[in-house]
Each structure stands twice: as structure tokens, then as C-alpha cells.
């Protein structure tokens, strides 16, 4: 659902970025909200430490903060293709929200925001993520499309479920490495 509120917040992201690699009106948007049984401060701190992202984002291999709010991102696809970009934190309100934007020259143009709001009834935090990425086309064309998956919504949902599990329980559920028949 694209609410007016989100559109409004998102335009603020674009307005603040100095050298955005995504031009106004470009890109596909995905968004998801989750309620997490942890405080906004805890979740904010976890997200603000950008090096944590590869722990739950399946295709992000590494993130290194290089200073001045700039970070270097490496993404690896299941086909072993690597994509890299620099991104800048363009808005940072401790305990409340973070916005980022990839910079010119990015292999995958992307931008996004994440908001942390106390949930009603003491149920922790409502976390809302809005991300935008470049549509298939240009020099990377179908590779990017494949890399982002047929359903970026699915990728984001799975990544966020993993993040929620990690924050609530300290681990991410898995069956990788368990026994099964016929494949010994």
C-alpha cells in the first residue's frame, strides 16, 4: 500500500541527498512494516551499525563505513556476480529513523528509509522500511532484474523476518545442514 505519508517521507529523502544516483521519479519502490519485540533504541542501534546488515540481508556480502556517513556496499548474487556501490546516510535520527541513498556510479542504484516507532500496548517497535532501487535496464539490464529476484518484496520480507528473529532471539531459523534422505 502506498500511503500518502510514505510518499511524503520519501520525497524528503530525495530532497536531502546531495548526489543521488536515483533521479526523482525513477526506480521501483518496495515497503514493509513489522512489529518487533524490542525497543526502538535497540533496533535503531542495530540498523545504524550498517555492518550488521549482511547478517540478515541474504545478498549483501559486506558493508564498510568509510567515514562522513559514507559506506561501501558489496552485494553477491547466487550466480556469484558481484555488485558494489557507495551510499551516504542522508538522515539519521537516533532511535527514530535512518535514510540512505546510493551515490553516483553505483552498480545498483538504491535508496531507502527505515522508521522505528513505539508499538501500541508495549509490543515493542513498529519498524517500517521503504526501499527504492533502479529498475531493470541500462548496462546491467536483466542481470539486475534476476539479482533482485522476481519478487523484491519477497526478498525484503525474508530479510526482515530474519532480522526480527535475530533481534528477538539472537539467532536466525535455519535448516541448512540438517540431514535428509537421498542426498548422502
Amino acid at each position, binding site marked *: 500500500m502506498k500511503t500518502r505519508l510514505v510518499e511524503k517521507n520519501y520525497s524528503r529523502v530525495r530532497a536531502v541527498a546531495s548526489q543521488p544516483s536515483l533521479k526523482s521519479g525513477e526506480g521501483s519502490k518496495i515497503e514493509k512494516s513489522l512489529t518487533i519485540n524490542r525497543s526502538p533504541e535497540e533496533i535503531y542501534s542495530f540498523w545504524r551499525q550498517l555492518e550488521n546488515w549482511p547478517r540478515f540481508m541474504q545478498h549483501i556480502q559486506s558493508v564498510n563505513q568509510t567515514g562522513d556517513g559514507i559506506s561501501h556496499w558489496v552485494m553477491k548474487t547466487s550466480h556469484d556476480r558481484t555488485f558494489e556501490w557507495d551510499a551516504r546516510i542522508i538522515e539519521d535520527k537516533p532511535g527514530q529513523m535512518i535514510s540512505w541513498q546510493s551515490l553516483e556510479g553505483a552498480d545498483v542504484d538504491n535508496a531507502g528509509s527505515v522508521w522505528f516507532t513505539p508499538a501500541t500496548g508495549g509490543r515493542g517497535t513498529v519498524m517500517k522500511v521503504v526501499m527504492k532501487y533502479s529498475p531493470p535496464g541500462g548496462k546491467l539490464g536483466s542481470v539486475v532484474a534476476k539479482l533482485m529476484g522476481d519478487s523484491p518484496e519477497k526478498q525484503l520480507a525474508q530479510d526482515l523476518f530474519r532480522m526480527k528473529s535475530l533481534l*528477538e532471539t*539472537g539467532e536466525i*531459523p*535455519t535448516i541448512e545442514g*540438517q540431514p535428509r534422505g537421498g*542426498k548422502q
Partner: protein
Amino acid sequence: MRALCWYGKEDVRVERVSDPKILNPHDAIVRITTTAICGSDLHLYGGFVPAMEEGDILGHEFMGEVVEVGSEVKNLKKGDRVVVPFTIACGRCFFCEHKLWSACDNTNPNAYETELETGYPGPGLFGYSHANGGYAGGQAEYARVPFADVGPLKIPDGIPDEKVIFLSDIFPTGYQAAENCNITAGDTVAVWGCGPVGQFAIRSAFLLGAERVIAIDDVPERLEMARQSGAHTITGNGHTFEDVKEATGGMGPDACIDAVGLEAHGSTLDAKLDKAKMSVKLATDRANVLREAIHCCRKGGTVSVPGVYMSAVDKFPFGMAFAKGVNIRMGQTQVQNYMRPLLKHIEDGDIDPSFVITHRLNLNDAPEGYRTFREKHDKCIKVVLNP
């Protein structure tokens, strides 16, 4: 180790597979001493459950000895004897904190798939399809138990496996079904299906104070077992509504339990239509028992559904339920809520759950056990397996 692996409809095989390993810090490895075939395993065996993959290890009723614990498991140690609940629960999410263990947010690696199915992510279950996480089950020599600090119940020495193994599923499932009936003194509870869950629902209804239990089935030995538990029995024969109404003095049961679920047989017209649709994969469940339970239930009574349903139900008599103000309760069992209190009932001698066991087999003979249980051959009601 040896394990019972699923390969397709009516095709399960005992194979040698690798031993399970600790994969996460809250895991434990259990050496299984007793396991069982559940009625719901027959839905897998019959090919009714989607998202199964060849080689999946089945089994969600098991107990054994802890042989290894992950770094974050502080309350169990090597050598502890435990019964493992079939629902895997993290103990830390909103749902677990509200004792809705079988709605846990954090135990299904394929949570997104269940979110697509039901709107929200579902929990992980042992040996019950990749929609439920794809966890290897316990019809094996060993099993990996995630969140072992939350689910498994320690069992004191001196109580034999056969008295406590069913705390893993069917005893709590039958008990929850009865508890959902909100039984008060003088109540009559009718139970459709006298398989293992139905048998525990009957015993549990009495434990919870029902004055009378009416058991409905068409298998003589199952009705006999129900009679031994004190139930009045009715042979399902196409006039069940009339028989139940007559048996309750025209008033109807205060509560009706559907302990059959999506594979209901039956000779009524609606049952035949359901079967025809299922056979051409129109993806509707066979629900004639559910319809009958709603029909039989007294005004303002409760219909409680421990039987498993998976997809849409055709011709659900919603208007009938509305007109009578029927309460409908259902859902996967919150096993963790019942294990301790039911262990106490066992220790106090109120019930010996081993009464349902009719067949004891070695794990190697599990495929034969599935066939026998499925066909109800040899008066089979419940099969336990010893690895």
C-alpha cells in the same frame, strides 16, 4: 543414522542419512528413544500436504535423551530425558510471550511462504512440510531440536516412555480440544473421530468435568476403546444427526469436537462431493464431519476443531452456525501450555496415555506401520516406533 524419509504419496522409506548437527546456539540434539506415527502424518503419507520434498524426514511425536546442547541452552544438559513438543517456539516473540506458542514468529525459515498463505508468518513444525519450516522430524535415531531451552519438557526417571511420549502432541491436542469446549458441570460433549486424538479428547473431556461424552466413529475397535473410557458411542451411519439429537434428549451436545479433519470419509452427499473435488485437485478439504458437528451442536454451544484443515472448505454452514450462535474454536495445539499440567495428571495416576497404543514396531518397520495405521488393519489405533 536411520530415518524415515518421505518420497511421495504412500512412499516412505527408512534410509541411512547423516546425523544431525547443532546449527544454532539454542539447538540441542536428542537421541530418540521412542517416537510415534501421528494421524496427521497420514495426511503427508496420503499426499494431501503441499510443500513436501523428496527425502524429508517425518515425525513430530518423539522423546529421548539430550546428547548435545548449543552454547545458549542453559536449562538442559547431556543425559536429560525430554519429551519434545511438535510446535517449535522461540519463547521470545509477542506470541510466545502470550502463550500462543504455535503462532511463534521466529521459528520458520520459510515464514514468507506462510505469510502468503494465511496473511501472517507461521511457526516451524517438525517433519511437516517446508511451508512449516522443513525441519527434519523425529522418526529417526536422532533429531536436532531448535530452541531446546523453550520447548522440551524434562521427564523424571521412573516414568516409562510410553506414558509420556504423547505429551509431544496428541494428549495436549485432545486436551486443548476439550478445554476449548469450556466444559461446565453437567455438560455433554460429542466427539467425532475415535482415533488417538479423539480418544484423548474423550478422556480430557471427563478430566475437565463433562458429565457425558458421546463418541462417534464407524470403526468397532475404536468405539470399543471409547466405551472403555466411559463414552456413550454412536456408529456413524448416515443418521448421525438424528442419533446425536436423540441421545441428547433433543437438545444437542453442549460441545462438539471434530477430531477427524480434512480427510473425513463418509457416505453423505456432501462427503462425496468433497472427495470428488479433492481428487481433481480443486483444493478443498473434506469437511463433512465439520458440517455435521455444526449441525448437531446445541444453540449457543461450542464446536472445537483439533482435526487438521489446510485449504478452503466448501459449503460451510455459516448461516446455521450464526443462527444458533455457535462458538467455533480451533488451531494448532499450544503444546507447551499443557505439557506440565498433563505430566502431573500422569504422575498422579489420573490417566495412563499408553492406553491408545496398539502397535509397537522398530523404526525399520515404520513403512509397514504407516500402511497398517492408514488402512486401520489389525485393529490399529496408534503406532509407536523404537529406533
